[in-house]
């Protein structure tokens, strides 16, 4: 194993702990928005797709990468929009209450 790889594994394990400890108590009304927001965040995969779409030359690889860019972007854009839509209904109501 190279040094970079060991570091990557370190990052992986520490980030796993961080993510696991991040959420403790979540009110039920936020379960769905939180799931939706975290899901949109996993659309960060788009950068992996970008790297491939920009560098690869083969036809099949380009098709796969471009589809991945589109799907991941839809995940990010739509995911954050739908989360905000759910949350906006809560906050508007709060201000009036």
């Amino acid at each position: 194993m190279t040094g970079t790889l060991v570091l990557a594994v370190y990052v992986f394990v520490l980030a796993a702990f961080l993510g696991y400890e991040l959420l403790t108590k979540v009110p039920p009304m936020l379960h769905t928005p939180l799931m939706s927001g975290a899901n949109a965040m996993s659309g960060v995969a788009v950068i992996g797709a970008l790297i491939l779409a920009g560098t690869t030359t083969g036809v099949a690889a380009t098709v796969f990468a471009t589809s991945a860019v589109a799907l991941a972007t839809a995940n990010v854009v739509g995911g954050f929009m739908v989360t905000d839509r759910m949350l906006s209904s809560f906050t508007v109501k709060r201000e009036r209450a």
Partner: protein
Amino acid sequence: MNAEELVLVAYLVPVALFVIGLKRLSKVRTARRGNFMLAAGVMLAVVITLVEMGVVDYTWILVGLAVGATVGAVIVLWASATSMPQVVARFNGFGGAAAALIGMSLFWDAVVDRDAGTTPLAALGALESVALAVSVVIGAVTFSGSLLAEVKLWGRLSRLTRIPGRAPLLVASSVLTAAAAVAGLLLADVRWAALSMVGLLVFSLLAGFFAVAPVGGADMPVMISLLNSVSGIAVAASGFAIGNTMLIMGGIIVGAAGLMLTQIMCVAMNRTLLSVFAGGLGDGGSSDGGSDTYENVVSSDPEEAAMVLEVARSVVIVPGYGLAAARAQQAAADLAGVLAAQGVEVRFAIHPVAGRMPGHMNVVLAEADVPYDRLVEMDRINSDFPNVDVVIVVGANDVVNPAANEATGSPIAGMPILDVENARRVMVIKRSLSPGYAGIKNELFERDHCTMLFGDAKQVLDDLTRELKANVPV
């Protein structure tokens, strides 16, 4: 510091935004800002990556970004508040598909197109190739699983809980997936290796389908949350395969936080992850859950019901998926408004999984501007039901089914419910006596103090409001 190190340092900013954003998203007061921070984090990560890549052929990048952004935005703008859970499931599937396609693209780029004559394992490196296979498998499972979840949430395949021979089929597709992964990484002939990768994709899709097929009832949100968590792991795996730290960190944070959220949701509805997988709901319900026919059901009409409501002092409205489906949130809000104007204490009791997902009813009622302080969560209202004069159940079924407290053999046994039967009177607005999502009978409807108001939820609520208004001398 060279350019590569600079990028690695710059990636820390989006990671920080992810951590703080998720934390804020889990608190009601800061949730919206938290969501913005997450979005900013992804945006920043994309910008950093594009800057790092320098001048490349942007054609396909721009095509992908434009198409994806348009599709994503259009889906959200077209969706109604009622169908939010389905939309979340669909986007989750998109994310999984992206992870799987990244793996496929990398395989074609680094193995098939180069055709170096070695095994893919040697061409990619041990950890990278395993990570690639993992990202394809989990990504594909997430995709097919999420899409099936969406279809089930629409209610079109809710009976698809027992496919004959499902367990062997799941095992078979899993074994074939593993075999295809081994073949895809070890075959030196690129054509066979490529074919194996296609097989890997197909078998993984099938495995995802069979894994989600038995999940039903109120368990679907947990399943989607779990799929969301594993899609994060798929992203992290593709990060290892490509050698991108941002993907590793972002992916695993989603994976771990998603797992925690799944656990929190399981606790909220008194289920274990294992029982969700086993698809406890829908198994054996009709055999030992008593007869499916109803006796002594009392039905009434809005006029009579309005007279009961006139003398009530405390009313609790229990909304369910039927309210959302009939788009009756405004009608319910109007009824609550009229009652409140007459000095009645009106509250909405929100079951954690009422509707199709936790928080679904909050979203729907918020759309109708129901004041926040009128929504009461299950734990706080259950002890108060004996003091409630009238409970109006609107399009809810399983979440008020007393079988959850009584019949041990019932598929929903142990699920926490709203104890509406303790109230003095219960009115149930429902289209028919058909079973709810869990597919079982509800004995509440036979109780002496329970009255059925058959009809479209919106129509009945509007009628109630009109009767109440008509009977009150202005």
